[in-house]
């Protein structure tokens, strides 16, 4: 063990349980690594070292005073949290000037579950403004750099969380995924990321972007580590009417890599012209690996895939235009000095929001406006039904669907900033999952010729996160890609 920050979640928890390390030592080692790397990576908007050290001391004290007691499952484990999830009395910016000084009065349910399980919070991570973006370049504060090559983006919108885990600045991090914002940065940063089923994890305290699409997700280095965290955050929450009362299974991942009897579908529509050759090659090799483990590979069709991008950008922006109406300079956030109330609304929003957020509010407002509603928003909702049915029909025949996470590996900082449509195309393989509400798991399967990570996505039926975690666990037991760490 060269460095405490190379530990997996399971290893760290075991060392803590055995008394081999204290939470204070572990937390301090992550804070030291953050201090050393943050000037180059820029993964965090707000660091909370004092709170983290206090939480670590409390965790150590609780363990010391209860040598034989039943202790919280994650006692003393450091984590990072994307800065769109509220943590009481800690600034929550959403990467936006409009919330630069916003102090939440409550804590998101997912974060509270982890606090109840004993975690230590290192800080709040960088994000594209209001989670709208694929690179963190839309953050009002900073662009996060990809730990594998710092001229490249980490992906987005949860790029801060992905870069922090990839760089060993946190063993696990929470993110949010509305159209791929956990899976695409996980892929770009060479780590494992889960977007759970819509309704599986509470959205309470997740500052809303597209309410019918938003999911809280998790980053770590392996499916095994994700399972530990997923068990803690999943389940019904009385504060989120869309969270479902469906039992969360205790996920047992054993050493079995025999996948005989499992059927994995490969949709032809996801292997298109324009996909980077290295991405296709590595994903095809990984699919072959699943076949070698005994899985049956079946070619399938998701015929409405090409419509997912326009459907997503009409529905997500329509929902965003309504959700972001709350930022009016009255109850919280930036407030322009203006003589009339209407001018205050317009100037606060005009100056407080960045250009991508305003672009999406404009697009969503247009799609919902009189005369255009049926043609744009209404039609998008109907095509969404067809996309959802594609998945329902496919899952009658297969247990999981395998695709690339994104058509490319991490692109260069600045490469797409002047062409919103090109940036939106980075999400074509992750958007359908959110439209259908199914879970998706991204994990590393190799590197391109520049040494940048390539990610593969497995999608599953509603509430079958366990299937995805088991399949990826079998892959990771028999491969080494998830153990690669950037040289920093």
């Amino acid at each position: 063990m060269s460095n405490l920050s190379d530990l997996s979640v399971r290893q760290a928890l075991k060392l803590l349980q055995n008394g081999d390390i204290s939470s204070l030592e572990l937390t301090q080692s992550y804070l030291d690594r953050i201090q050393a790397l943050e000037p180059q990576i820029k993964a965090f908007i707000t660091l909370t070292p004092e709170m983290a050290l206090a939480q670590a001391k409390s965790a150590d004290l609780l363990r010391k005073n209860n040598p034989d007691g039943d202790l919280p499952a994650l006692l003393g484990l450091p984590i990072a949290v994307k800065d769109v999830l509220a943590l009481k009395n800690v600034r929550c910016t959403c990467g936006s000037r409009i919330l630069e000084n916003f102090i939440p009065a409550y804590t998101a349910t997912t974060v509270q579950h982890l606090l109840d399980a004993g975690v230590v919070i290192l800080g709040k991570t960088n994000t594209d403004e209001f989670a709208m973006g694929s690179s963190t370049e839309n953050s009002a504060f900073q662009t996060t750099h990809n730990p594998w090559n710092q001229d490249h983006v980490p992906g987005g919108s949860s790029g801060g969380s992905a870069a922090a885990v990839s760089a060993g600045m946190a063993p696990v991090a929470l993110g949010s995924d509305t159209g791929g914002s956990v899976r695409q940065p996980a892929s770009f940063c060479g780590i494992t990321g889960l977007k759970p089923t819509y309704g599986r994890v509470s959205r309470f305290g997740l500052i809303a972007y597209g309410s019918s699409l938003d999911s809280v997700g998790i980053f770590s280095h392996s499916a095994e580590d994700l399972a530990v965290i997923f068990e803690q955050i999943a389940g019904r929450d009385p504060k989120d009417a869309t969270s479902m009362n469906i039992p969360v299974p205790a996920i047992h991942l054993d050493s079995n890599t025999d996948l005989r009897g499992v059927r994995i579908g490969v949709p032809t529509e996801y292997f298109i012209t324009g996909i980077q050759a290295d991405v296709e090659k590595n994903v095809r090799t990984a699919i072959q690996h699943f076949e070698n483990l005994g899985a049956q590979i079946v070619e399938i069709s998701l015929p409405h895939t090409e419509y997912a991008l326009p459907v997503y950008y009409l529905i997500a922006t329509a929902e965003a235009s309504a959700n972001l109406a709350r930022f009016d300079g009255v109850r919280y956030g930036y407030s322009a000095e203006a003589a009339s109330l209407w001018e205050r609304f317009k100037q606060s929003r005009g100056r407080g929001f960045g250009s991508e957020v305003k672009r999406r509010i404009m697009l969503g407002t247009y799609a919902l406006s009189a005369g255009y509603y049926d043609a744009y928003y209404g039609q998008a909702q109907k095509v969404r039904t067809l996309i959802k049915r594609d998945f329902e029909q496919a899952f009658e025949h297969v247990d999981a669907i395998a695709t690339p996470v994104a058509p490319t590996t991490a692109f260069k900082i600045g490469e797409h900033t002047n062409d919103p449509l090109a940036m939106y195309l980075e999400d074509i393989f992750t958007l359908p999952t959110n439209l259908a509400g199914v879970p998706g798991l991204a994990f590393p399967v190799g590197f391109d010729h520049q040494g940048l990570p390539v990610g593969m996505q497995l999608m599953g039926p509603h509430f079958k996160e366990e299937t995805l975690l088991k399949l990826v666990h079998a892959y990771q037991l028999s491969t080494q890609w998830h153990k690669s760490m950037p040289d920093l």
Partner: protein
Amino acid sequence: MQLTIQEVEHIAELAKLDLSDEEKEQYREQLSSILAYATMLQNVDTGDIPPTASVLPERSVLRADIVQEPLTPETVLQNAPHQKEQQFKVPIVMENGQ
């Protein structure tokens, strides 16, 4: 699909966004090209297809009507840019005390 500056101004007014002239021109071009891309949806036959607003099964979610401890006025107002006597303060909405 080409938006006019007047249409952009109309949308900005609906969305309550104060935009500069450069922003209006930029959004006019970008929204035009995004909407042109989205016209591919008009080619999909959705005659008898119901819309999806939520992927979850439709159901009513109720809870017991139990009085709970609310946030204090101080907490609710802790982020208010302008406040007075435990209220959010805004510029005059109606003139002459009407």
